[in-house]
C-alpha cells in the first residue's frame, strides 16, 4: 500500500464515520437523561431530505445543515410529546418515529431522486492541505470537525458543568431529581431536542458529505448502528470515536470491494454490504462479554417518569 492510498483510506473512513458519530453523540445525551429514543434512523432520514431539498433550492450548504437540524428537532418533539408529556412507551414510540421518518422523507423526497447537488467542500483552503499528511488533518469538511468538536463538547458538558450534572441526575433517578425540585420533563425535552438536532445533522451528512443525491432510505440503518454505538461506548463520549471509526473502516472496505479493489472483491459484494450490520452484532457481543458493561447504563433508561403526585 502506498502512503497516498493509506491517506485516501483514512479520509474516506473519517467521512463515512461522521454521520454515525454525530447521531450517536446526540443519542448519548438523550440516554444520559434517561430516555431511549429508537427513532434516530427516522430523524436522520427527515434531516437528510430537509438538507437535500434546501441545498437543491438554495445551493447553500450551511443553510441546509441548519434546516436539517431544525427538521430533526421537530421530529424529535413528536417523540418527546408522546413519551414525556403522555408517558407513552418509549420503545414503541421510537419504532413509530422511525416508520414515520421513513414514510415522510420518501413522501417529501418524491421527485427529487436523480437530481444532483454538490457536496460540501473542505473547510480549509486547499493550499493548507496540499501535502498528504496535512490532508489527513485539514482536508475535511466542516461537518467532520463539527462531529469531533461535539464529542469534546458533550464530554465537557456532562462532566464539568452543573447543567450536565443535573442531566445525569435526571437519568439516574428521576424521582429524586423531581423531589429536589428539578424539572425532569423539561430536562428530558431539552435532551430529546438536542438528540433530534444531532440526528438531523447526521442525516444531512448523507447528501452533503457522502452521495450528492437523494434516495429513499439512504441512511440504510446507520441510525440504528448509532444507537448500538452508544451501548458499545458504555455511555462515554470518547469511546464513541473508536466505535464510529471502526464502522467507518468496515464501510470503506465495502466501497473499495465494490470498486473492484483486488483481494477484497473475492468476497461477494452482498456480504460486504451486510458486514456493517454483522459487525454491529459482533461488537455488541464483545462488549457484553466484558463484565458490568451494562451497569454503566443510566438507571432510568427507557422508563417512563411517573411521579406519584
Amino acid at each position, binding site marked *: 500500500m502506498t502512503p497516498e492510498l493509506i491517506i485516501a483510506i483514512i479520509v474516506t473512513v473519517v467521512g463515512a464515520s461522521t454521520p454515525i458519530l454525530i447521531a450517536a453523540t446526540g443519542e448519548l445525551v438523550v440516554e444520559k437523561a434517561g430516555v431511549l429514543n429508537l427513532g434516530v434512523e427516522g430523524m436522520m432520514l427527515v434531516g437528510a431530505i430537509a438538507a437535500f431539498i434546501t441545498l437543491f433550492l438554495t445551493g447553500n450548504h450551511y443553510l441546509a445543515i441548519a434546516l436539517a437540524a431544525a427538521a430533526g428537532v421537530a421530529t424529535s418533539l413528536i417523540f418527546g410529546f408522546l413519551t414525556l408529556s403522555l408517558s407513552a412507551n418509549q420503545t414503541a414510540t421510537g419504532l413509530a418515529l422511525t416508520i414515520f421518518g421513513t*414514510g415522510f422523507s420518501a413522501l417529501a423526497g418524491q421527485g427529487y431522486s436523480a437530481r444532483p447537488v454538490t457536496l460540501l467542500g473542505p473547510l480549509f483552503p486547499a493550499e493548507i492541505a496540499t501535502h498528504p499528511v496535512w490532508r489527513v488533518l485539514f482536508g475535511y469538511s466542516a461537518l467532520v470537525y463539527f462531529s469531533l468538536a461535539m464529542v469534546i463538547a458533550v464530554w465537557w458538558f456532562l462532566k464539568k458543568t452543573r447543567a450536565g450534572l443535573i442531566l445525569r441526575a435526571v437519568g439516574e433517578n428521576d424521582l429524586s431529581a423531581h423531589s429536589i425540585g428539578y424539572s425532569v420533563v423539561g430536562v428530558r425535552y431539552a435532551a430529546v431536542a438536542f438528540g433530534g438536532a444531532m440526528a438531523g445533522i447526521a442525516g444531512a451528512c448523507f447528501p452533503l458529505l457522502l452521495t450528492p443525491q437523494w434516495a429513499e432510505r439512504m441512511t440504510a440503518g446507520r441510525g440504528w448502528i448509532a444507537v448500538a454505538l452508544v451501548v458499545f461506548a458504555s455511555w462515554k463520549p470518547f469511546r464513541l470515536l473508536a466505535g464510529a471509526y471502526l464502522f467507518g473502516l468496515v464501510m470503506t472496505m465495502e466501497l473499495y470491494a465494490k470498486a473492484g479493489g483486488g483481494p477484497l472483491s473475492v468476497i*461477494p459484494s452482498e456480504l460486504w454490504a451486510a458486514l456493517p450490520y454483522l459487525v454491529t452484532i459482533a461488537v455488541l457481543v464483545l462488549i457484553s462479554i466484558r463484565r458490568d458493561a451494562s451497569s454503566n447504563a443510566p438507571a432510568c433508561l427507557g422508563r417512563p417518569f411517573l411521579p406519584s403526585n
Partner: protein
Amino acid sequence: MQFRLEKRLEPSRLMLYATPIAAVLLTMVIGAVIFSLIGYDGIGAVREIFFTPLTNAFKWQDLGVKAAPLIIIGVGLSIAYRANVWNIGAEGQYVMGGLAATWVALSTYGMSGWWILPLMMLAGVIGGAAYAAIPALLKTRLGVNEILTSLMLTYASVQLVYYLVRAPWKDPMGMGFPQTRIFSEAARLPTIIPGTIVHMGVPIAVAVALIAWFVMSRSVFGYQMKVVGAAPHAARYGGFSENKTIWLAMLVSGGLAGMAGMLEVAGPFQRMVPGFPTNYGFTAIIVAFLGRLNPLGVIFAGIVMAITFVGGEVAQTSIGLSSSATGVFQAMMLFFLLAGDILVRYRIKRVAPAAEARA
C-alpha cells in the same frame, strides 16, 4: 378552565378497545387536513386509502391476501411484546422463512406430491424460528439487546436474498434477471376460491389468530408470557424462568414470521425475487400494537393495515399519491394510538377554577 390528568383506580377496558378505533378515525381526519395543507388532495387521499378498498368488491381478495401475512406475523409479535421481548426483526425472519421454503421448492423442482407444501411450511417455520434464535441466544446468554440484534439481522437477511437470487439460485432461463425460476405446481399454494387470488394463507391466518387467542387467554404458556412481560420479578417468584420465556417468545414470533414468508413465496410470488422483502415484518409491528397485543385485535388491525396498503395502491394510480404516503398514514395511526394509551390509565378531569387558582 384547565384540564388535569387523574389516575384511574383500574385501567379502563372501554378505553383499551376504544382508543385503537379512535386512532384510525383521527388518522383519517388529521391525515386529510395535513395532506391538504401540504398540497395534496387530502380528502381524496383518505377516501381512496381507507374507503375504496372496502366499497370496491373487486378489491376484497387483495385485502385478504395482504392481511394474511400481516395477521400471522402480528400475532407472533403480539405474543413476544406481551412478554416484553422486543423482536423487531420479524422482517428478517419472514425473509429467512421465505428463503428456507424456496430452498425446499428448488430442491424438489419437477417433483410432485402433496408432501411438498407441508415440507416447505415446516422449512419456513424452522427458518424463521432459527433466525430468531440468534437474538434469543445472545439475549439470554450475554444480555445483548434483542432490538438491535434482530434488526441488524434483518438488514443482513436482505443481502442474503440479493446474493442467492444473483448467484446460486438464479433462474438459468431467466435472461439474466436476478430471480429464481417459478416453482413447480406442487410447490405453489393453490387458491381456495376459484377465479380469485385468495390462497390457503387467508384461512391459515384466521386459524393462527384464533389458536393464539385461546392459548394466550387460557393456558399457562399465555400466563407465563404475560407475567414475565408485566413483572419479571414476580414471574421469577411464581416459578417462571425469564430466559425460557425469551426463548419461547422469540421462537414463536420468528416461527410465525417464517410461516408468513413461506405463504408469500409459495402464494403471491411463486418464486424468490429481490423484491421479496416487502416490509410486512415492520408493518406487523403496527398491527400488533393497533390490535392491543391481543390476537383477535390483530385480525382487525391486520385488515385495517391491509386496507391502507390496497388503498395506497389505488391512490397511486387514481390521484397520483406516492406509495410512501401509506407509510405516513400508518405511522400516524400508531402515534395516535400511543398518545391515546394514557386514557387507559388516566382520566381527563376539568379542574374547577377555584382549585386552579390555588394550584
